[in-house]
């Protein structure tokens, strides 16, 4: 067991973790934040994507110990009270999801992309979500959603 300190969705935490525990287990089981999903458990599908230190990670592969001194953002950290984050709102308005299982990871990848690049091209959006499988939508409406969110966040629409 090792004690770690980190912020999760802007709240500071300190707790002890076992060395083999994954960040995904920490988020889902210890904090009950089940918005982050486990799809493949092998770092391929992207359903477990969270932001750690400003970068997206597959939380199923990251040891919880690595969260020490890090800032972590999960899907639950995006809403502001009742108000959806512009990316979330765009996904709702533009039908950026079907079954919704990939959606938290997809939105987190989109956030990481737009935080760095507020005006991405279609190709850059595709690259930004290239680590996230979606079996339902064929990606067209996800890309439209991210593009609309980028515009809204730039103060466009």
């Amino acid at each position, binding site marked *: 067991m090792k004690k770690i300190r980190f912020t999760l969705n802007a709240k500071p935490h300190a707790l002890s973790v076992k060395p083999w525990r994954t960040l995904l287990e920490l988020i889902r089981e210890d904090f009950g*934040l*089940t*918005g*982050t*999903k*486990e*799809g*493949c*458990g*092998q770092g*391929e*599908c992207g*359903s477990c994507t969270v932001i750690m230190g400003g970068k997206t990670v597959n939380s199923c592969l990251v040891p919880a110990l690595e969260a020490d001194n890090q800032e972590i953002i*999960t*899907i*639950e950290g*995006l*809403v502001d009270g009742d108000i*959806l984050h512009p990316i*979330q*709102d765009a*996904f*709702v*308005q*533009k*039908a*950026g*999801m*079907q*079954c*919704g*299982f*990939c*959606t*938290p990871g997809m*939105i987190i990848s989109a956030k990481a992309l737009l935080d760095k690049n507020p005006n991405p091209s*279609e190709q850059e*959006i*595709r*690259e930004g*979500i*290239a*680590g*996230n*499988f*979606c*079996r*339902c*939508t*064929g*990606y*067209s*409406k*996800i*890309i439209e959603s991210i593009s609309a969110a980028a515009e809204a966040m730039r103060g466009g629409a």
Partner: protein
Amino acid sequence: MEQYSVIGKRIPRIDGRVKVTGEAKYASDFELPGMLWCKILRSPYAHAKILNVDTRPAQRLPGVKAVCTGKDFGGWSWGWMPKTRDETPLAVNKVRYLAEAVAAVAAVDEDTAEEATELMKVEYQELPGVFDPEEAMKEGAPQVHDYVENNLSWEFHMDLGDVEKGFREAHLVREERFETGRVITGYLEPPAAVALYDSSGITIWAAKQSPYFLYRHLASCFNLPLNKVRVIQPFVGGGFGGTKNDSVPGDFCSVLLSKMTGKPVKFVYNMEEVLMTCRRRHNMIVYVKMGMKKDGTITALHSRVIADGGGYTTIGPLTMFLTGCMTTLPYKLPHFKHDAYRIFTNNPTGAAMRGHGVTHTRFAAEIQMEMMAEELGIDPVAVRLKNAITVPHETVNKIKVHSAGLVEGINAIAQEPSWKAKDKKKAAEGYISHGVGISGTAHLGGARQRGHQSCGAVVRLCEDGTVDYLTGATDAGQGSDTVLVQIIAEELGLKAEDVDIKRVDTAYTPCDAGSYGSRVTVLAGEAAQKAARDVRGQLSRFAAEKWEANPEDIVFKDHQVYVKGSPERSIPFRKLAQIACYSGPGAVIVGKGYSDYGLEVLDFDKGVGNPGTSFSFTSHLTEVDVDTETGVVKCTDMVIAHDCGRPLNPINVESQNQGAATQGLGQTLYEEFVMDHGKTLNPNLADYKMPLALDVPKIRVIDIITEDPIGPYGAKEASEGAIVSAPPSIVSAIHDATGIWFKEQPVTPEKVAMALKKKQT
């Protein structure tokens, strides 16, 4: 379109908000106090006798609470038909595919359960296996089931008209062999459930696309009346047919282990279990013999299908039926013969997947038609327009088609600039060769084949004018909840937000056949429409009495209720609801309805009659870039002209088409299980490659409106057509780029590169 307020509008999904915030709970997100974890022990052999299972070492491990083996299910077995119940929750005497479930453990946590499975000692006697369906059909091949000769799991034959006469009338007769690949549905949410067996019976939160299958299976397996089985539907992370339309060993084992321990038991499959053991699309060898006149008219078709069924029958009889029954659309076909053989092998089991059965034979017949047209010098558009059906149409197997937008669809895609410039853009850019191809296909909707097939709906009016809607239909992601709510709102003059849909809970919601065969919007929609009209009728009587008007003249629109032609006699819907619930003795207003269209008897054994209530038509244009050095095919554009009658929510219909086409793209170009003696060599999402955002073009959808006379508001299916149309249009585009016809899916870079090399020499 103007007559509707909610129908036909691009309203956002009603489950959008909970899905983007992470609030939506899926089966694996459920936990109960005292919950145990179930893990399954799986066979290391593809074909073996089970001589002994020693569970004692597992039981001795601290934290293990119960263990079960195949024998604990008392010989119970299940299958799609009474005569095909050949599968048991856990293997009893024999395993028939690699990683088949043999025993299960319940322990205090997941790791302990896993460790316990590894401690169990199973004695096997390995048997020779058979892995190729054509080998398995031969005399003397190893028998997968002792009582089945030549491993024939199911056969299905059709013989309509006179194919020999049709071939005699043809100018050209050609026979080719086609093959479709070994692919899986590809949902990201693995099967999972939390089960509780107590004095009130079974309660289970399970990831199911069609929860009433599980409801019946559990009642039968545990010998309980149906009112003691409660399946509660969490959000479902994709289905696409097959596994989530059936029960899995984990379902039965978690319930049994809960019964044994008195504790709730949870299981979640991992992705390796999904990819090694869950239902796959049948891979099929399809021989197509077709006759064609000089002008492109198809005179006859004889198809022969050999399907790899894997270890068990599952839904295979329906698969075989669909391979033949649907070949008579979307082109006129006066003479048709079909022989389909489903063969047991020691591979993982084949079952339904989106485009069930239809995609295989349509791919073969579509490419065959275009190859023959090419031989006769007929343009791909011309040969399709020559043969496309127009309504009213009855096929040779007596499928009645009431609306068909194939001609309009083909004409629409033929107007695309890329198609018009087809012959001009042949100049290759370096190693890249461009190609454009088309296809035209049909798919059934409102599937009604055999067994229980109807949908029900209950609409409860609340005294404040809001509405509760109970349906047995499951939205596994396709968006049906939103469309069904739109229907209720439309009928009652409300907005979608006034209607609350309850997710399936078999204790409360009306029984439903399931979400398959593109039946939900059509049949659950019909039930919803009737239930809402029932409520409207009851409210109309109150309003008519108040205004001394005819109940038929009461209009419900925009939250108002008024007498037709005299809007001054008007009342808010909310107010009328209150009056109805409170005035006089008061009323409890509950509306109900069920789908009853299409009850005519289908001859399942001969493939004659309507397999669904209506038929969609999909015309599909694909552009590709083929790297002639590496053989890599990149799909650069897709346009789908889809006739779903009338889109009830166009944004949803577009998304369904885009998703289906993308799944079709994956299976055409690269998705494929690599098998070695029954072993899946690529059971992970790195090596089993599904399309990512970089692999897929922007997909445009053109709505072809045909106003089907049967579906609610003219609607037909929208979720499966494009998975059938994508493969032939892609293969046609690759042919345009390379001059080569590829008849086996997937068309991998290796196959393309080899074929190009062969062509040059």
